[in-house]
């Protein structure tokens, strides 16, 4: 099981600070069980009940009583908000051009306020012929489809893999309790999927909505695929929304999976996500997480290198401005011998924003011949902006190559002068230097079309 090592993750001593904050979700659950969730299979009904019970017991995390994992991020504003489930009626007027990947062929599933938008979802033309009636976009056994349909269909895959590595943190529990839709992606053994798989979660901001997107990815033996998950807000002066996403990934022997995330929710949005990945023998996960916006953002990315030869590359970019708060927790669990991880997270913080990076790396006693590199670099561009950067290395094996480093700096004045002396204004110089700073992360995206899309997103943001 991947997750935060027990004892660290959830202190049982953490008690709800205010009954009403949780009770809103409890009564919402009672209503949901009666209608929305009433036709769930029994295993899922049981999971939902266990999850809501976990949530009731643990409550929202607080920074109190040594709850290390939440000491930099205060979720009280989120807990105090009253969000409703969406009825799914908001997606009529979406101009999709802004979200389109610049490539002709793409597997695309779009969700608006948590509800599947069939009119915005597509599949590569050549595969239409293979379309299976009920289970989304299928070709040669490939599944890129709605999770809700897979659950409806009682697809054994779902029960087999669902919620096996998530743990019982408050937010993941809420997601499991309220899970309605999202994606099931299954790449059969030996299959290379050439088109990007694009999962887009749009929040309209027309009402105060909470969504619980759930994505389950199973990458078969020696398969190759690329997934991008986008989180967008339709309007920027929106009603605050709460996106509570959970992604579960399992890669089997020799699988290569590129997993990209682009988060650009509104300045008043709450974005909480956790991603849990278990990486098989000689399999590789390349994760790139771009958090360009959002009001209160917390991402947990947990990767278990479960079998010999498993490797992961983790790249991240977070941008804070205004009053925003963006918190990235990563956890790499070197569980088996000859595993390697290489992590580079970069932050740019302006205004009165606050960034948090906590990078935990555990090398277990069995994990000999492990290579683990971690780097967190931050550019703090204003006096009020802040960053807390904390590496947490726990190494229990001896034949290990480990490095880690964290830097916090401003723009280098000598570099700005160097560019000035070639005719560039200070503003142009700063822009080029910041672009240079982020390019290492952006270049970790190897798919050309996605790279073009994400480069544009980041450059637009940095102007």
């Amino acid at each position, binding site marked *: 099981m991947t997750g935060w090592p027990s004892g660290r993750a959830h202190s049982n001593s953490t008690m709800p600070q205010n009954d009403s904050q949780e009770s809103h979700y409890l009564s919402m659950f009672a209503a949901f069980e009666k209608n929305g969730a009433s036709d769930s299979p029994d295993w899922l009904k049981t999971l939902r009940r266990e999850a809501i019970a976990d949530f009731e017991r643990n409550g929202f995390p607080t920074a109190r009583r040594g709850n290390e994992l939440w000491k930099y991020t205060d979720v009280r504003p989120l807990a105090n908000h009253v969000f409703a489930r969406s009825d799914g009626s908001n997606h009529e007027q979406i101009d999709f051009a802004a979200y389109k990947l610049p490539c002709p062929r793409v597997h695309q599933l779009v969700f608006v306020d948590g509800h599947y938008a069939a009119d915005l979802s597509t599949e590569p033309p050549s595969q239409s012929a293979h379309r299976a009636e009920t289970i989304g976009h299928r070709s040669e056994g490939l599944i890129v489809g709605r999770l809700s349909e897979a659950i409806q269909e009682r697809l054994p895959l779902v029960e087999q893999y669902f919620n096996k590595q998530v743990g019982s943190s408050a937010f993941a529990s809420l997601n499991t309790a309220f899970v309605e839709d999202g994606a099931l992606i299954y790449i059969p053994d030996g299959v290379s999927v050439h088109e990007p798989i694009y999962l887009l979660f749009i929040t309209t901001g027309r009402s105060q909505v909470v969504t619980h997107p759930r994505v389950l990815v199973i990458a078969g033996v020696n398969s190759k695929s690329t997934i991008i998950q986008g989180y967008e807000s339709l309007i920027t002066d929106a009603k605050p929304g709460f996106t509570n996403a959970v992604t579960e990934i399992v890669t089997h022997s020799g699988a290569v999976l590129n997993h990209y995330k682009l988060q650009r929710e509104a300045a008043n949005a709450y974005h909480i996500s956790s991603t849990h990945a278990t990486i098989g023998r000689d399999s590789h996960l390349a994760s790139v997480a771009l958090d360009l916006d959002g009001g209160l953002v917390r991402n947990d990315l947990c990767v278990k290198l479960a079998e010999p030869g498993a490797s992961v590359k983790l790249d991240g970019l977070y941008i804070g401005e205004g009053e925003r708060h963006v918190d990235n927790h990563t956890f790499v669990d070197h569980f088996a011998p000859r595993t390697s991880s290489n992590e580079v997270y970069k932050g740019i913080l302006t205004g009165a924003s606050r960034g948090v990076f906590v990078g935990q790396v555990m090398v277990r006693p069995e994990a000999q011949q492990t290579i683990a590199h971690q780097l967190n670099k931050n550019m703090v561009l204003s006096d009020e902006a802040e960053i807390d950067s904390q590496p947490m290395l726990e190494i229990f094996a001896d034949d290990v190559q480990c490095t880690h480093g964290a830097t916090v700096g401003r723009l*280098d004045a*000598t570099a700005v*002068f160097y560019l000035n002396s070639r005719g560039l204004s200070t503003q142009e110089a700063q822009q*080029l*230097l910041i672009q240079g700073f982020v390019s290492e992360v952006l270049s970790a995206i190897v798919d050309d079309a996605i790279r073009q899309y994400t480069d544009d997103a980041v450059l637009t943001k940095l102007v």
Partner: protein
Amino acid sequence: MLDIIDLHAEVAGVEILKGVTLHVDAGEVHAIMGPNGSGKSTLANVIAGNPAYRVTAGTIEFEGEDLGTLAPEERARRGVFLSFQHPIEIPGLRMDHFIRAGYNSVMKSREEDQLDPLKFDRLIRAKAKVIDMDATLTKRAVNEGFSGGEKKRNEILQMAVLEPKLRILDEIDSGLDVDALRSVSASINELMTPEKATLLVTHYERLLTYIQPNQVHILMDGRIVASGGKELAREIEIKGYDWLAERQGA
């Protein structure tokens, strides 16, 4: 072209330049020599407008215009160029993107044509060829992982692209082996025209056997203590700087 009168400048509150006066005409090459820490780089940086240095007295005029209030990019756009003693590494910023942005800023300020990436690529290749530099270096991040010699050649490439009127070359010879020195010097000579002026900052007389100076100035403790022809550099090479210091003190 360049008229410096009684220039005083400080860095971090310490006075480094203590009254420098210097005149350089178009078509001329002037060498500034002096021991380590005498203020050579400070002088070069102050002319180029590095905000880390503060001018406390005196004036710098370029083609009759007071540079004192001009930002460094304004000076660059008017034709002042500084080749850095220690060129800056900028990870993630491609050399050709960087210098095209600089080139276009300069052109824009002069209301001349800017170049798109394709046209600029042609220009930079041609310039790289002129100065005998491997053009593939221009596709790499600015100076990142460049050898000492490659960094210096990269400065000359930027100069070749921007075609400045006043070329301030701060220790262009340091870190170069004999062959590289000969080749870089040849490029500097080749790019020289009667409309341009060159200020060569150097430690060693050796550079001056490749690039003929019209005048040599010795900077010590923030002042020019001697000026003369090429033979002055020769004398320094043989006798060192101490005799000048003693003469100055006396």
